[in-house]
């Protein structure tokens, strides 16, 4: 399953870091962050609980980029 989320982030480098962090999160099969359109595309594993996975994606991103935002709720 794939979903697209609106995000807020300041610089291209930070966006790339968010992408890395999202990719490493459990339950995420693949992720890409588009800095220009400010969108994050997440492909989930088959039986993933989307809400929970996104919680941990958000946490991971906040860790590397304290003032980023993901609108997933």
């Amino acid at each position, binding site marked *: 399953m794939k979903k697209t989320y609106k995000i807020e982030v*300041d*610089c*291209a*480098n930070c966006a*790339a*870091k968010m992408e890395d962090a999202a990719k490493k999160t459990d339950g995420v099969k693949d992720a*890409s962050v*588009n*800095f*220009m*359109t*400010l*969108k994050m*595309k997440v492909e989930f594993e088959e039986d993933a609980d989307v809400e929970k996975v996104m919680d941990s994606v958000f946490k991971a991103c906040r*860790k*590397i980029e*304290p*003032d980023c935002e993901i609108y997933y709720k």
Partner: protein
Amino acid sequence: MTKKQKKNLIRIIISSVLMLLFLFLPFEGIIRLGLFLIPYLIIGYDILIKAGKGIINLQPFDECFLMSLATIGAIIIAVTTDGDYIEAIAVMLFYQIGEWFQSYAVGKSRKNITGLMDIRPDYANIETDGVIEQVDPDEVEIGSIITVQPGEKIPIDGIVTEGSSMLDTAALTGESLPKKVSAGDEVISGCINQNGLLRIRTTKDFEESTVSRILDLVENASSRKSRSEDFITRFARIYTPFVVFSALALAILPPLFSMFVLGQNGGWHNWIYRALTFLVISCPCALVISIPLSFFAGIGGASREGILVKGSNYLEMLSKTKTVVFDKTGTLTKGVFEVVSVEPEKITKEQLLSLAAAAEQYSGHPIALSIKKAAGNISAACANNIEEIAGHGIRAEVGGEIIYVGNEKLMKKIGVKFEKTDRSGTIVYAAKGNNYIGRIIISDVIKPTAKEAIRNLKKTGIKKTVMLTGDSTSAAEMIAGELEIDEVHCELLPADKVSEIEKLLEQKNKGESIAFVGDGINDAPVLTRADIGIAMGALGSDAAIEASDIVLMDDDPMKITKAIRISRKCLKIVNENIWFSISVKVICLVLGALGIANMWIAIFADVGVMILAVLNSIRCLMLKKL
């Protein structure tokens, strides 16, 4: 301006005013330090916090870390020497100004580009019992009737059932002339209805409609990264740690050397200052931001011209194109058969066309259709006893006389003497009774801009143009000759086209690419196989959009040159930015290490270079004159 930008702007102003004010206060020592820490913390607190968090999370090597290290270092030097805090604050201040400018510029161009792509319709009108209701276009089922009022966007692809109007297709095709549509015409979503009320029967879901597909394509384009972007990402990854360790070495090794080897006092201040300058210069932001921005602007600008590029890697590849291979039908020619010549014998052209059209009046064959179309306004004669002679043609009675219309075989069969011609195309002969009355030549017509397009390609530096076609040699060579195409391969089956492309791919030089242009009908495999597949006028064909790398929204061959020029301009700007930023930084780094460059030059090397690079990449949006 966003909230954050406003807040940061206020911080920048307050901090610079305070800094200048304190400059004139006569305090010394600890009070002076305390005073100057106020503007420093106002402008830099978030950077310091971020740097701290970075260290805690074991991700230390980012800009914030560099900036914090450099400014704290500068403050310490100031405390121990002359109390000149301006440099430390200025570094932070200008860094923030640079960040602010970057965020403003990126936001602005983002708005610009998404503004161009603002073709997403918000609603569809469904009429029930005379009342128009606005619904989410996602909920409209195939086959529903939707109403589009003047000034509204067509939300979903479909067929007009009622009404006629002029459509503004500029957002989709870049074509400024409006298109006239009336009942029975197919319309695509994203066009703006200019004057009349239209009722449309939808033929697709919203998600499958043109507008959704285009948006999807452009929005996903930047996830396919070009080699330049990859290079920058990798570069930044090794570059930052490298600079930090070099700075450390610069701060420690020379003083140690001078202390222990030369027996002097080491000059610690001097070397630490140089190391800090080094750190400020080194920020890679100019590259990290300007390269993706250039590609994004290039792709956005191209889509405004009706050229959809599926990824920045394709833009890069396209700029290296040296050979362009064309499919003939539908690409260089219109793909519709038209009467190109009427050559009557002893009667007038009108009479010949009218007789032939009368004989063919019930036939649905493409040849018959084109004759009837050409006869169009000429008052049609009436035909009786129409009889089709399979594989030969038609026999009919018009005005009491027997008329034969058909191919060479028909003429031979009825024993009429006729003149042969070596012209290419389909030739229809006609006879009245036993007398030959002339021939009509029908062929596919070359697009009006095709010749100029090929010439322009040559001017842009394309080395070779090739045409692939399933047509007979004579027809193909005539067209190639007229268009001045270098190489023709004819009588090809769809599978042969792939092997021809493969042959060309083997011959090409390294670093060059081969583009194939087709209309997506029968040539999807070739589109995939070529380095760059360009599909033309492909809005209707899913297979073509899927198989190609670049989609031209209308079918004008001139757009190919335009696409190539856009890609070259974009790549040129990218390279300019890469070389400009890296060389300024390297020069300043060397100057900094030698002690020639001070903190102010360092600030220029960081913020100034970034601003220049961002401004330069915005030029990618300006494509009108290409």
